[in-house]
């Protein structure tokens, strides 16, 4: 019988250190891209009625400010709300807006999907994939990201959208 190798304290400390470092970005609610814990119920009710509840860290504060000031013309639809709710939601969005590296850049039209990091992450997706009936647009995160409604966009929780052609299916895990 082989004895299990004793755990070396130095290796243990190093592993713990790496773990802690990996967890650090999400611990900073004001700069991470994860969904903060204190999501206002109005955010889920109002914003997530039409689209994914985008984590506030995906846009910089100035972009959120413009989005909330123009809800009556919200990317082609009227998403107007009462002034109190707008103020409450904007305060929360400002407090948790993205400050991390490229999220800090204000994307064209204040669209998350026009952010440099978004385009980079999705650069291998074929144009036809975005147009699938099961996807409709890049705003439909949940078409592929199964944890989108919880603000989880981990690459391991992806699913293939229905109707993907054979070539894209083969390339899916690349």
């Amino acid at each position, binding site marked *: 019988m082989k004895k299990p190798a004793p755990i070396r304290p130095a290796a243990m400390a190093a592993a713990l250190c790496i773990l802690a470092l990996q967890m650090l970005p999400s611990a900073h609610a004001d700069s991470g891209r994860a969904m903060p814990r204190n999501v206002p119920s109005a955010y889920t009710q109002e914003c*997530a*009625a*039409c*689209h*994914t509840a985008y984590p506030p860290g995906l846009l910089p504060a100035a972009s959120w400010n413009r989005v909330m000031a123009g809800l*009556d013309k919200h*990317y*082609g*639809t*009227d*998403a*107007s*709300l009462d002034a109190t709710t707008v103020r409450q939601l904007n305060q929360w969005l400002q407090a948790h807006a993205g400050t991390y590296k490229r999220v800090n850049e204000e994307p064209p039209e204040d669209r998350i999907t026009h952010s440099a990091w978004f385009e980079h992450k999705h650069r291998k997706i074929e144009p036809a994939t975005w147009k699938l009936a*099961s*996807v*409709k*647009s890049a*705003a*439909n995160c*949940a*078409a592929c990201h199964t944890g989108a409604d919880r603000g989880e966009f981990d690459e391991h929780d992806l699913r293939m959208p229905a109707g993907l052609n054979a070539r894209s299916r083969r390339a899916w895990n690349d």
Partner: protein
Amino acid sequence: MTRTRPLALAALCAWASASTYSQAADTTAAQQLAHWSAQAGSPGNVDKGKLLFTTRHGSEWSCASCHGTPPTGQGKHASTGKLIAPLAPAFNPKAFTDTAKVDKWFRRNCNDVLSRECTAIEKADVLAYLNALKP
């Protein structure tokens, strides 16, 4: 004084839950139909409601673009793909049970489809159509 506090607290809780409840379900689809018909001075018309619901009115979208035709099953947001609960009350017990929500969505969606707010008779017609849809 201290003896009345739990009672007062209980009363406050009861009031809070009652008011929350009345906010979440302060109306019904039938009441909404009656309300808009009364305001228009004429009863809602099922056929006119159906036409209004399915016509694009010169814009990109109709009501049916997101809610489906007929709106008895799950709808899908025309641009984001987000699923929408069935609109016809017989297929969704929560539909048209919250006045604030009804007003908000009529305002937004009429703006999107008709590029203006809907009139009382238009809302009455749409409700007459939706209420007439049965399993």
